[in-house]
């Protein structure tokens, strides 16, 4: 048994220590917001936060995060009222949506650590996240908008 701390809850799982966190989240804990896209840390669809840092869960063995705080897209709530989600909705970013959990988790990490991200900051933080629908222009704009919402203390 491995104990994981996911979204503020302690969860016990019976898993191969080598099992990537991605499959533990999706198959064992039924948290399907986190997606599989490549399995080799090349697309970002599986991005979650481990102790506040964005990581690719597809290459993170569960045993390596047993003592860490894990946060998935589900931790942002069901209504879409996190500043990043609000910006995403305001600018109609999503298309198929499959990459968006990963995009949003990368973006949340960025705006948490950078109150006013520049284009270069956005390139650096988001280059690991692929979007085959090509929502990049809107993601860029939405990150700036999210930072603005945050700077205004959450008010639009």
């Amino acid at each position: 048994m491995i104990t994981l701390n996911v979204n503020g809850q302690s969860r016990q799982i019976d898993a191969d220590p080598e099992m990537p966190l991605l499959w533990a989240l999706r198959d064992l804990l039924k948290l399907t917001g986190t997606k599989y896209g490549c399995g080799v840390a090349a697309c970002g669809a599986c991005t979650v936060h481990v102790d506040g840092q964005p990581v690719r869960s597809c290459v993170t063995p569960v045993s390596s995060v047993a003592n860490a705080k894990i946060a998935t897209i589900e931790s942002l709530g069901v209504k879409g009222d996190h500043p990043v989600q609000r910006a995403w909705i305001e600018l109609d970013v999503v298309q198929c949506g499959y990459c968006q959990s990963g995009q949003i988790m990368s973006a949340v990490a960025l705006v948490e650590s950078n109150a006013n991200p520049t284009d270069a900051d956005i390139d650096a933080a988001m280059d690991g996240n692929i979007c085959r629908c090509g929502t990049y222009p809107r993601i860029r704009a939405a990150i700036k908008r999210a930072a603005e919402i945050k700077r205004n203390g959450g008010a639009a």
Partner: protein
Amino acid sequence: MSTNRRAFLIGIGVVAAGTTVGVVVAPRLLGHRKPPFDFKPNAFVRIGTDGSFTMTLGKAEMGQGIYTGMPMTLAEELDVNPQRLTIEFAPVDPAFNHPFLKMQFTGGSMSTISTYDQMRLMGATARTMLVSAAAARWKVPVESLATDDGTVVERNGGRRATYASLAEDAAKLPVPAKENVKLKDRGSFKYVGKPQKRLDNVVKVTGRAVFGSDVQPPEMLKAVIARAPSFGAKVKSFDATRARAVKGVVDVKQVPSGVAVIAENTWAALKGREALQVEWDESAGQNVSTASLRAEWRGLAAKPGTVGKDVGNVKNALANAARKIDVEYELPYLAHACMEPMNAAALVKDGRCTLWVGTQNQSQDLNLVAQALGIPPANVELHTQFLGGGFGRRASTHSDFTVEAAHVANGVGRPVHVVWTREDDMRGGFYRPYSISRVRAGLTADGKPLFYHQTVVGKPVLKQSPIGKPIIDKLGFDPSSFEGAANTLYGFQNLRVESHDTDEVVTNLWWRSVGNSIHGFVVNGVVDELATLAGQDGYAFRRELLATQPRALAVLDAAAKNAGWGQPLPAGRHHGIALHESFGSIVAEVAEVSVEGRNVRVHRVTCAIDCGFAINPDQVVAQVQSAVIYGLSAALAGEITIDKGRAVQGNFTDYPVLRMSEVPQIDVHIVESDGPLGGLGEPGTPPIAPAVCAAIHAATGQRIRRLPIAASLA
């Protein structure tokens, strides 16, 4: 079960309490419950006595926005704010068939075009009945009543009644005939034609949208398949001893597409597959590689082929041309690389089958599964989920991934979810066809375009599809070979296209814009070469070729003007232009490019589109940007090469796609016209590759006749 719990279970498309939930609901807002009573004037809309509005969507949402576009159109005529609608995915039912094609599918950029009138009628029918119900209740003529966002109101400012309060009365009225239903005029539209927020925003930013990958029927197992390592390979034998010893592996069995490893979870299935030993007979693909096909096809391209179109007299033109070119164009196999790899879940039990899948081909999938299992189609149920990208791959000509799931699940007695790894998906074929063309074209003595003669070699898509056969039999050739070339808008007086259909073992499929992405590149490339030959720029020369096409001219002009064509650019930057019509929409693009060594950087793309009428202008912009980025990824570096029957590339590490830092600024200008409604998902893709290559020529003098650009700039 509490209502909340129930709503949640319905939301994830589960089989609850022994009964299969007929319709998989993707609730846009939490807490969507069944109202006490629903007024259901047709298959598409329900008006609940609790104030709910539910629309049943027969189409698949793969990013293109139909989940918002169709509801908008229905809501317009129903006169309800579209944001109040809850959307359900429809079961497979003839009510949701394409009006003419008699099948339920999503593709060809025609969902909006083909359902626009239908959705208006469905919404207006419901509104008419609700107004009649109010008129009867208040004993006033219907003419004295109007509607306003879900409420019937007296025009004199008197009484008001919500649709919810009228639902039970309206349900007792006969459904009026089409002739007795009055539609709004476009001038009075409140929603259609104006930007509307996507109805799938909230579920998709919270991780709650249920994709095919995410379904969770109880007791479900996961499976991966040891797939043919090369095209046409067959299983000779396999040894499952070690695979079965992996903890969590439940079963190992042979299926038509390989050897399936079924396990309690995805990781166990993957470990099991690693431990599995399979011996393959790879003889079918042994001699097939891109290099050998290239050599063979170049020879073929020089020979006369099947004529797909012949206008004027290219033979005379060739003899009389003052200046001419004789060139070869080559485009690679391309994987769709949908963000969500292929997958499908199936439960086969007691002579029945339940499927959960993100598919563009609902009715065909259902029928082919029934056929594969030898059960009547009525015993198969298919629950459409959100699609993590489609681009044509999820409109499989043989329903490959859905039928495969049924084979794997057959005999298991529990639902089995067959998942594909990225490598399975990328090496699994169904590519855009590899294509080589020889083109001869020329000018008159005074530099006017005179003729265009193309011979294309490749394995056309339609021929590989069951729906293609009747079309091909009728025409005597496969029109998909020529799509985008035979019907080019460029007005060549003498035009001839011929084809040689090949039959290599590699499987092909429609790839976003199908033949148009191939021939949009070839035709525009040749037009650009002719422009140079005539001593003109690409824009001016195209204006001549489009002189009798006012819509195309307006689009070309809009792109050129907004890009600042002919104006000075920052040092080192160059413009290229292209135009292509597909799926009823005309798109022109101007690319602003710089080249340093082998490094091509696209800084800005200016697009203009005439799609007749933009139902949701904001989504027109989104789709054109999307199509440009998709086409640009392919143009710059997209290539699947075949070596001894095997696909070389397997993941985003060797099949690079555009990332944030590489994406240009993309401006989209909508050119309104009174033309018929055009498609949106695909038409933005064809012009980008030729526009970029024209700019590379302007920058370096080098013609790119072979894609990807990276392969030509070597």
